[in-house]
C-alpha cells in the first residue's frame, strides 16, 4: 500500500441526502403549483418566476463573490427562495418588483444574517412583506382584464380568458376578500384554483400534491402543516359558529383553500431554517400560526394573514425551542424546588 489511508472520526458512512438534494425535492414539489400558476396566469407569470429566480441566485452569487465567502449558489436554496417568492407575487406586477424582491430576500434577509441556516425569517416571505408594505398598490392588485386575441391569451393564460375582476372590474379583489365581505364563493373553483390571487397560491389541489410528495419523501414532517391547518380550521369554525349567519361549512372550506394558507402551511412554515427543530416545538409553532392566521383574517384589515403569521412565528422560534426541548432518553423529569 503506497497510498496513505484516510483516518477520521466515526461514523465513516454518510446518508445520500444532501442540502442540495433536499432543495431539489422542494423545487420538484413546487412544480404542480408553479405549472398551474403558469396555466392560470400565462407566460407573463413564467417571466416573473424566472425573474425572481435569476434575481435570487445572482444576488447570492454577487454578494458571496464580493464578500469573498464560499459560494453556495450550487445548493439550490437561492433557487427555491426565488421560486417561493414568485409564487407569492400577483401575476400582474411589473418586472422590477421580482428583481427587487429577490435582492431583498437574499441580501437583506439571508446573507446579512450570515447566509444559509442563519436567517431568522423566511427570506421569500420577508421579501413579500417588504414589497407589500413598500408597493402596496401593485402588490394587492389582482385584476386581470378580459382579453382577446391568441397572443394575449398565451401571455395571460386562463386569467386573460376569464378576466379576474370580481367586484367592479377596477379594485380587483381575490375570492378571499369577497368571502370576507360575506359573498358567496364557489368551493370547487377555490379548490382547483381557477381564480385571482398570487401566482402559486390559488390551487389548493396543486399545492396538496406537492405537500404530499414532500411528506412521502420525508423532507417535511406532518407536525407543522398538520398543526397549522387543524388549529386554523378550529379557529375559523369557532369564529363562524359565533358569526351572524351561524356556522357555515362552506365558509370554513373556502377559508382553507383560499389565500396563501396551503402554500404557507406546506412550503413556508416548514422552511427548516426558520421553524423549530424540536418535535413538540413544531406542533406549538403550527398551532401558533393557525391561530394567528385566523385572527389576522377575521379581525384584521386585510383578508390575508398567512405571511404575517409565519413571520411572527419565525421570530418566536428560539423561544418555542427553549420551552420544548425534549427530555433525554431515560432521564426523569427534574423536580422543581
Amino acid at each position, binding site marked *: *500500500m*503506497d*497510498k*496513505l*489511508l*484516510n*483516518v*477520521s*472520526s*466515526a*461514523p*465513516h*458512512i*454518510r*446518508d445520500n*441526502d*444532501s*442540502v442540495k*438534494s*433536499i432543495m431539489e425535492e422542494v423545487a420538484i414539489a413546487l412544480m404542480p403549483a408553479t405549472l398551474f400558476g403558469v396555466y392560470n396566469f400565462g407566460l407573463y407569470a413564467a417571466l416573473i418566476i424566472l425573474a425572481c429566480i435569476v434575481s435570487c441566485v445572482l444576488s447570492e452569487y454577487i454578494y458571496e463573490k464580493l464578500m469573498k465567502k464560499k459560494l*453556495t449558489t450550487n*445548493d439550490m*436554496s437561492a433557487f427555491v427562495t426565488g421560486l417561493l417568492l414568485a409564487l407569492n407575487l400577483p401575476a400582474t406586477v411589473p418586472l422590477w418588483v421580482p428583481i427587487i424582491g429577490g435582492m431583498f430576500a437574499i441580501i437583506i434577509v439571508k446573507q446579512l444574517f450570515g*447566509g*444559509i*441556516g*442563519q436567517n431568522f425569517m423566511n427570506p421569500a416571505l420577508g421579501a413579500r412583506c417588504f414589497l407589500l408594505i413598500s408597493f402596496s398598490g401593485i402588490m394587492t392588485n389582482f385584476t386581470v382584464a378580459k382579453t382577446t386575441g391568441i397572443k394575449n391569451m398565451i401571455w395571460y393564460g386562463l386569467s386573460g380568458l376569464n378576466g379576474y375582476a370580481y367586484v367592479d372590474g377596477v379594485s380587483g379583489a381575490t375570492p378571499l376578500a369577497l368571502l370576507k365581505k360575506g359573498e358567496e364563493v364557489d368551493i370547487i373553483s377555490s379548490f382547483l384554483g381557477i381564480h385571482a390571487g398570487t401566482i402559486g397560491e390559488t390551487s389548493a389541489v396543486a399545492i396538496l400534491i406537492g405537500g404530499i410528495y414532500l411528506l412521502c419523501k420525508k423532507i417535511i*414532517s406532518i407536525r407543522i402543516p398538520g398543526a397549522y391547518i387543524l388549529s386554523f380550521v378550529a379557529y375559523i369554525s369557532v369564529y363562524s359558529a359565533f358569526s351572524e349567519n351561524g356556522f357555515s361549512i362552506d365558509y370554513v372550506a373556502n377559508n382553507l383553500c383560499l389565500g396563501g394558507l396551503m402554500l404557507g402551511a406546506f412550503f413556508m412554515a416548514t422552511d*427548516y*431554517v426558520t*421553524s423549530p*427543530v*424540536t*418535535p413538540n416545538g*413544531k406542533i406549538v409553532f403550527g398551532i401558533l400560526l393557525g391561530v394567528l392566521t385566523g385572527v389576522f383574517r377575521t379581525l384584521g384589515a386585510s383578508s390575508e394573514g398567512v405571511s404575517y403569521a409565519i413571520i411572527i412565528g419565525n421570530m418566536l422560534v428560539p423561544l418555542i*425551542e427553549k420551552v420544548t*426541548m*425534549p*427530555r*433525554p*432518553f*431515560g*432521564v426523569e423529569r427534574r423536580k422543581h424546588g
Partner: protein
Amino acid sequence: MKSYGFKGGVHPLDGKELSKDKEIVDIPATKEMVYPLSQHIGAPAKAIVEKGDACLVGQTIAIGESFVSADVICTVSGTVKSIEKRMTASGNQIMSIVVDNDEEYREIEGLGREVDYQELSKEKIREIIKKSGIVGMGGAAFPTHVKLTPKNDDDIDYVIVNGAECEPYLTSDNRVMLENSKELVEGLKVILRLFDNAVGVIAIEDNKPECIKAIKELVKDENRIKVKALRTKYPQGAERNLVYAVTGRKFNSTMLPADVGCVVNNIDTVVSIYMAVCKSTPLMRRIITVTGDAVANPGNFSAKIGTNYQALVEAAGGLIGEPEKIISGGPMMGTAMFTLDVPVTKNSSAIVAMSKDEVAANEPLSCIRCGRCVAACPSGLVPQKMYEFSKHFDEENFARIGGMECYECGSCTYVCPAKLRLTQSFKETRKSIISKRRKG
C-alpha cells in the same frame, strides 16, 4: 412476528450480504503474537511473565489486579520476546507482551476439560469467568465478571443476550448464532444459574430470521429462555435502546442496566462464558468479519487473540486496489486505522476496507436546521443545539441539554444533509467535560 424497537435511529445500507453466508474459517496464528495489557475498560493488567519466559496455550500471562480489570491469556506456545509498547487498532501505543510463536501449540494442563456447571457454586462460576479474561465483546470490552456481579443477584429480572448486531457490514455474531447456537444457549444457562429470578432473552434483529428460527427451535422446551425479534435499525444493539426494546425499561448514562434489573451480554461473550465454564477454555479467540468493497473474498474468521491483522486480510484474499479507508469495527462506531500492523484483541470485531471514503468526499456545509439529527437521535437529544454549544466551547449548556447522555452512536452525523461532523465534536466536548469532572 412482532418486532420491538425504540424511537429514533437510522437505516444505513447494511452491507451484510457480503459475508453473512460465509462460514467461520479458522486462521493460523502469526509468528509474532502481541498481547496488549489493556484490552478492556478499567485498570491495565499486570504482566506476570518476563522476557525469555516460556509460555503455553491457555496460560495466564497478565492479571487484572483490581476488580475492574481483566486477565490476559496466551494463545500460542513459545517464548516472551519482549514487553514493550505496541500500536493497537485504536491507534494508541499500549504496553504489550510480545510472544515468539514456536508453532507447537503446547497447552497448559486441564485445558478443554469438561465441567458440569450445575455442580459449581455461583462464586466459582464468577471466579472462572474472571480468570478466563472474558470482557464484553460487543465493543466496549467491559470486564464481564463485573457485569455479572450486581449489588443483589435477586434484583435481576432479565439476562439479555444482545444479538442485534446493528452495525452495518458486521456478520460475526450472525455466524456465531448459527454455528454455535447450542453453546450460546448453554452459556446463557450458565449466566441464569447466577440469577435465580431472571429470565433469559436472546434478542435478535429481524433481518436475521434464520438465527431467530434456529435458536427458537433450540429453546422451545426451556421455560426460562425466550427469543425476541427486534426491529432492524441502527443502533438497536446499544445497551439502553436494547433494554428498552426488550423490557420497556429506561435508564440513562448515570445508571447501569443492573439498576433496572437487567444484565446484558453480547453473543460471543455468552459463548465465551460457556467455553470458560463448561470446557475449561479461557478467552483465546475472536470471530472477526473481514469485509468491505476493497476486500477480495469477504468472510468471517476465527483468529487467535494476538494474531496480526494483516493475516486476517490475507485470509480474506487480500485487498483489491488501494482502499481509501480501513476501519477496525463497524463503519458507524469503528476506528479508522492507518496501519494493519496491529494485533487482534478481545474487542476486535471486524475489518472493513472501503475503496471510497465517504467522510472525505463530503465536505461539511452550514447547518440548515432540518431536524433530521433530532429525529435520528436514539437518546432523544437535540444534536443541532449540542453542536452549537460544542462549537462555542460552551460545556455548561452542552451538559444542561443532555449532552452527556450521548453515547456517540453516530446516527446524527450519518443523516446530516449538511455533512457536519457532529459526533466528532461531541466526542471532544464530552471528553473535556469528563476529564474536568474527574479533576474537580
